């Protein structure tokens, strides 16, 4: 049995040399949050930070996967390398999942400069899996120029992708709602670009004008984020969208998007911290205390905040003890 550090070192060196199977194995380790993944990320994270991380989000059926496939085609015809992380929901009942985004992305078998990976959200609620950011860092580190993150089909408040991506594209379909929908807080607020897809359907122009009218004046400036129309299934509007995405990237580089990077780093650190705490609670020793606390809360003997404080105090004690 080799050490996790040894396995990680070997996978990293072959993946960095271009081996796609090793890359796939690293992504599995990251998804499963194994010791191999932690060792690999120590090597790979400093190499990441060069790719353009592009988030694609929007409601189920708006055409995210089809648009991602169309963008991949456009990028490949320009000779640019691209990876896709496509997230689909996990069953809250069984933990199983149908990962169906590849159905629309099949034209690139044999092209080693395209790498598509499906991820189940595994109970994480923000529109991504808790490990999506780390998976993107791995794909970034091995040299993909663009890493697209396709979220689960979102409702109004799954905005996590905006922290994970440099540029966030929010997809809408025609006839999805009126002007009041467009001014509700949430998803549309985090859009760098808004795209009305299925542009060949009636109502697409009208939806785009309504969005343009209602999104201006906020943090996107007087005119709001650009609102574009695409028909991903035919490719119409996709070259123009890619131009807008690239322009956004260039502008970001000019205006020092340090704040966005800090926000992402903060989200990553907080995520890792929450993960560490969660794992400690599951470990033998803490599990008994946790179960007791949960029973006390269920019986209304203590409140959840007191229970959390007590468990946290117990964890810090364990940690301090282990350090001595």
């Amino acid at each position, binding site marked *: 049995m080799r050490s996790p550090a040894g396995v990680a070192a070997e996978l990293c060196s072959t993946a960095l040399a271009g081996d796609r*199977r090793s890359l796939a194995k690293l992504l599995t380790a990251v998804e499963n949050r194994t010791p191999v993944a932690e060792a690999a990320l120590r090597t790979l994270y400093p190499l990441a930070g060069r790719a353009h991380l592009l988030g694609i989000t929007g409601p189920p059926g708006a055409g995210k996967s089809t648009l991602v496939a169309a963008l991949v085609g456009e990028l490949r015809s320009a000779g640019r390398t691209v990876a896709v992380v496509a997230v689909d929901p996990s069953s809250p009942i*069984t933990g199983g999942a*149908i990962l*169906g985004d*590849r159905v629309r992305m099949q034209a690139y078998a044999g092209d080693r400069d395209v790498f598509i*990976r499906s991820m189940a959200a595994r109970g994480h609620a923000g529109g991504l899996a808790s490990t999506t950011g780390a998976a993107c860092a791995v794909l970034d580190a091995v040299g993909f120029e663009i890493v697209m993150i396709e979220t689960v089909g979102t409702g109004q408040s799954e905005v996590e992708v905006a922290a994970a991506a440099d540029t966030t594209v929010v997809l809408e379909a025609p006839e999805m709602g009126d002007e009041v929908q467009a001014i509700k807080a949430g998803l549309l607020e985090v859009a760098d670009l808004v795209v009305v897809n299925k542009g060949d359907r009636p109502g697409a122009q009208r939806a785009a004008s309504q969005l343009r009218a209602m999104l201006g004046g906020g943090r996107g400036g007087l005119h709001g984020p650009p609102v574009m129309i695409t028909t991903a299934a035919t490719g119409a509007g996709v070259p123009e969208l890619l131009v807008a995405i690239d322009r956004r990237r260039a502008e970001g580089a000019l205006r020092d998007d340090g704040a966005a990077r800090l926000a992402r780093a903060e989200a990553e650190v907080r995520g890792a911290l929450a993960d560490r705490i969660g794992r400690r609670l599951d470990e033998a020793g803490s599990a008994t205390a946790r179960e007791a606390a949960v029973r006390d809360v269920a019986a209304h003997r203590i409140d959840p905040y007191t229970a959390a404080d007590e468990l946290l105090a117990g964890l810090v004690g364990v940690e301090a003890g282990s350090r001595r």
Partner: protein
Amino acid sequence: MTDRPIKVLIAKPGLDGHDRGAKVLARGLRDEGFEVVYTGLRQTPEMVATAALQEDVDIVGLSILSGAHMTLVPRICQLLKAEGLADVLVTVGGIIPDDDVPALQAAGVSAVFGPGTTIAEVAGYLRANARPRE
């Protein structure tokens, strides 16, 4: 972690006209707690191998109704081996004559599931035979 979900690719290589059976199986395995990558109709052997590689699946389940299994299945097994995926469990479902089963097994197929197999039987077999996970 040993309790992570088993990841399975359900693929329909060749020119079958419908994928109802494959979708029912995909849904059934979801309900059994598997993570199921579903790729849709009319896959080439190269597409299946690429998907298996990139997704790092534990199992490739091929659904074929067209009668082309003796051409497609050995080709897919060969590509998987060439990609270094010899440890991935390959199973076939659909309309496969009994006489063809030994040849498919010789090509690298672990099990062939015919009409009437229950989801529970398939899930049980996959759990018992998927490669040991790291």
